[in-house]
């Protein structure tokens, strides 16, 4: 179906995709509750159709205050990200069909629109505007939980996200100074400008030590909000890195660290949604490594993995969310044995789990292996080793822990009802897409930025992966059998957020006290000096020290005299 066949829809191609969402959000703000869910599902679907039919090129150049902006840069890289963003907006909003919370619904639309706007941004200023848009819209998905804890978490999240935007803006301004161009294309790390931009992307991509906003915020969002959150912000950063910093070597090492360290945290964490947040971080590592390698294969792998990842991570968040929705908790310690009454959710969760673990015939397998192959093609053996380790380790938390501790393991005695129908439908569609990609990878490969010549289903590949996974499970089973598994335990894990939640306030308090002391001493010294100088002047000019009163008028006249003196000296001497 070409756009010409539907004149009404062909007008769409004249409108930046993001601008579909903003009036939609306005509409959602005024529509009655009953009509909002269809709008929320229909609008992204319409956008998906538009993204699919858009021609390639720079479609919407715009000159503003002497800056050359580009609202719609459509090419294969931006199209695949925009496509998955619209798809996940459809699925996420379908999952949230029951929702009657206007704030969340509007935020979800604005957030998706901003993320898509950012993906299509052809210049750094447009990118920055949408970049901040995602930050501001998404925080409402956290605040919508409407608890004090969520409020504070949201504030922390917002600060970090806005900081990222500010860095991006600063970087963009410097970049403009340096190159005279605001075009958002491949950059070379080296100048302060590019480092600032890199850091801005890094924050959103949850680089190690910049990552903790993710684990802090996602478990604090609402049931449906987390699903939406999990899709956009980090993958937007991945897109931005792929666009701006493909082939930057440092990313390989950053990515390698990213794949490894979260798995340990994920293993001990009790809150299942936080487990998934750590797992998300680990998966981002694969994409970052792919960007760092920068070969066509690696970038294809990154894009494909982002696509597949958004789907199965959303599926996992949905299933955990469904459990939370029915039981009121997502803590491993309080769950177990739910397969008895939520079998469908359990099966869908398992599909998500096997997809993320990379079991053949599921989506993770056909995409993750592209990054691994790219790494081995580049002979980056330590990195490759880290990726193999991480592939196995993913299994332990996302592949086994999530389904096992929630749906199997010991019987918690809970007998919750099955998830609502719309949730099952959303999860079912997502799971179907995971399987479809696994079965027919060619469908996804056709969308990738570069031509693909990669065949995941070779014998050795399948066997190797199965060995990795099955013996991983064996190790897990043995650990369970002999009580070596760390097991479930309630608690909080310290992570880098400790630095700003506990250490920084303490240090700042001490620093403030120090500064106060120094300032006080300095002010006293300056005051004494000034008093001495003034005393001298007063002794001459003030009849009886009348001006000694620190009466504003008096001190102002002093200042007037001082500045006049300075001015005269400067003018005469210059």
């Amino acid at each position: 179906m070409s756009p010409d066949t539907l004149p009404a829809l062909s007008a769409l191609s004249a409108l930046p995709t993001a601008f579909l969402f903003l009036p939609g959000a306005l509409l959602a703000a005024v529509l009655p509750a009953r009509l909002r869910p269809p709008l929320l599902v229909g609008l992204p679907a319409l956008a998906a159709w538009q993204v699919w039919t858009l021609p390639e090129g720079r479609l919407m150049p715009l000159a503003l205050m002497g800056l050359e902006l580009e609202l719609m840069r459509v090419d294969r890289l931006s199209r695949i990200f925009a496509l998955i963003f619209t798809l996940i907006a459809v699925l996420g909003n379908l999952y949230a069909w029951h929702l009657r919370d206007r704030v969340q619904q509007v935020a979800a639309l604005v957030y998706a629109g901003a993320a898509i706007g950012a993906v299509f941004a052809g210049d750094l200023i447009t990118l920055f505007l949408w970049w901040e848009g995602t930050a501001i819209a998404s925080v409402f998905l956290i605040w919508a939980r409407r608890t004090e804890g969520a409020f504070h978490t949201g504030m922390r999240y917002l600060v970090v996200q806005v900081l990222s935007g500010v860095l991006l803006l600063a970087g963009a301004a410097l970049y403009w100074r340096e190159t005279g161009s605001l075009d958002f294309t491949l950059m070379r790390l080296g100048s302060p400008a590019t480092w600032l931009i890199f850091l801005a992307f890094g924050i959103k991509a949850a680089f190690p030590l910049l990552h903790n906003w993710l684990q802090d915020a996602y478990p604090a969002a609402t049931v449906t909000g987390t699903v939406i959150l999990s899709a956009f912000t980090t993958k937007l950063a991945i897109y931005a890195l792929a666009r701006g910093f493909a082939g930057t070597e440092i990313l390989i090492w950053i990515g390698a660290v990213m794949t490894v360290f979260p798995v340990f945290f994920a293993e001990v964490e009790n809150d299942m949604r936080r487990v998934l947040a750590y797992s998300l971080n680990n998966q981002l590592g694969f994409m970052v490594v792919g960007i760092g390698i920068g070969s066509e294969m690696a970038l294809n792998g990154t894009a494909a993995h982002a696509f597949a990842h958004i789907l199965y991570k959303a599926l996992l968040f949905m299933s955990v969310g469904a459990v939370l929705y029915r039981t009121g908790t997502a803590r491993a310690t309080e769950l177990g044995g739910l397969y008895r009454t939520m079998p469908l959710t359990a099966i869908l969760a398992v599909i998500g789990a096997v997809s993320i673990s990379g079991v053949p015939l599921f989506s993770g397998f056909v995409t993750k292996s592209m990054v691994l192959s790219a790494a081995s093609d580049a002979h980056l053996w330590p990195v490759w080793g880290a990726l193999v380790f991480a592939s196995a380790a993913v299994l332990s938390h996302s592949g086994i822990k999530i389904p096992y501790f929630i749906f199997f393991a010991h019987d918690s005695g809970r007998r919750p009802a099955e998830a609502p129908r719309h949730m099952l439908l959303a999860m079912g569609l997502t799971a179907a897409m995971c399987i479809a990609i696994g079965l027919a990878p060619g469908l996804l490969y056709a969308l990738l930025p570069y031509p693909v010549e990669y065949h995941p289903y070779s014998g050795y590949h399948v066997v190797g992966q199965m060995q990795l996974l099955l013996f991983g499970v064996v190790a897990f089973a043995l650990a369970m059998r002999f009580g070596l598994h760390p097991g479930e335990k309630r608690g909080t894990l310290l992570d880098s957020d400790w630095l700003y939640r506990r250490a920084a306030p303490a240090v700042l308090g001490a620093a403030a006290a120090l500064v106060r002391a120094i300032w006080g001493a300095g002010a006293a010294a300056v005051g004494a000096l000034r008093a001495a100088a003034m005393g001298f002047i007063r002794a001459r000019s003030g009849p009886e020290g009348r001006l000694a009163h620190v009466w504003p008028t008096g001190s102002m006249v002093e200042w007037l005299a001082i500045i006049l003196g300075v001015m005269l000296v400067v003018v005469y001497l210059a």
Partner: protein
Amino acid sequence: MSGQVAGDALAGHAAGVVETATAAERALGLADHLPVLVVLVPFLAAPLVVLLGARRLAWPITFAAAFFSLAAALSLLSGVLGGDAISYHIGGWAPPLGIEYRIDAANAFVMVIVSAIAVAILPYARTSIAAEIPARQHVLFHALFLLALAGLLGVAATGDAFNLFVFLEISSLATYVLVAMGAYRDKRALTTAFNYLLMGTTGATFFVIGIGFLYMSTGTLNMADLAQLIAQQPGNRTIHAGFAFIIVGMGLKVAMYPLHLWLPGAYTYAPSAVSAFLAATATKVAVYVLLRFLFTVFGPQYTFEAAELTWVILPLALLAMFAASFIAIFQVNFKKMLAYSSIAQIGYMLLGIAMLSQTALTGAIVHLFNHAITKATLFMVIGAYVLRAGGAFYRDIEGIGRVMPWTSAAGVIGGLSLIGVPGTAGFVSKWLLVQGALEKGWWWMALLVVASSLLAVVYVWKGIETAYLRAPREDVDRREAPLTMLVPIWIMALSTIWFGLSAEWTVGAAGTAAEALMSGASQLLISGGAGH
């Protein structure tokens, strides 16, 4: 866009000055008198209001006069945007002997700001002063408001240094009384007004002493003529002294940092409508005068190369940006916080002046405008709070965001603009200033601008936190502000967004003005010659 503006400005150079009135031409239409009418109409309306003495007529006359001034100022601005200047000879006496009104992009822009703010504030003031000033004083209030307005417009319009001083005093004296009218709410307004009177008069005296020095060595008061004659006597110490006196005197009127002490009190204790009007216009006009003297009369070359003024103004500007922001953070009174924030924002304008580049100066002039509408919004919001909550202390307005959602939302917009968030007017000017700093390669300066914006985040956040995150007080009048206040507030708030999103007009006009100022004396030599 900017390319086009620059082109227009270049065209303006060549065009020189359009003479509207010479002794030979007699038949003049109303439009030719706009340079004087823009000042004269509010000036005449003031005694008219007093003479009629009817409370009911006072407001319509005032509003009509202000509206006329706005229309006239806009029409003048559109006439001079090409880069031309309009010269009007009072009494038909040609300059330099007679008093000349000369309108170019810079002062037309300032007149538009002043009259537009007056038009926007008057509907608001009607409700606001009804609550804050006893009825018997309303006629007086309107007369004084008109005088202040006429004075400020006159300062902008005139091309004669002494005439400028006279108008400065007209507006200042009216302002002192307007501030004192806050005494019906808070007796401290009286001492404040008295302080303001003393300091303002001191500043004006310095200014007039400086003019005296200039007159002594040049024998003229016409600014164009002054510029020409000053350029001929580079080493004249009398002129140096005059320069110092004028800059310091105007520095006080501008509220340049250590000379700012009159401002916080005056803005805090004045009636809300007066605070809003003053904050948006008085210091802006003073900045204009400073610009006029630095660039037109003395010329950028004299000011910044011979006198090295950059190194006097720059530290003071930075001091203002930081010290005043810090003070603002620790205020417990919303109005006072805004007053200190104004001092900090004036620091930005001085910074733009001191950096001496086309971009930075454009930034300073745009900030003049953007800060005027931003501060007007915020002071009007505070006025609405005062009306309902009875005070402007933070403790008075706790949780008021829930009680007065519309007013508070406008306040948030104003706050964002104060910080300089993209999409608001405040961003445009700060962006230009940062741009100007980077052009000079001073990127430490760009960082300082950003850093001081972060301080603005702190004090604005404090306000937002108070208004939204605290529980509302029980004894607060739990109603939204009346529509007569809400509509002007929102017009202002939306205009901060409008001028944040479509900055072509402001940046273009300010760019022309900056161009005219930067070319300084050289351009005036042409026009001065034409005037003889």
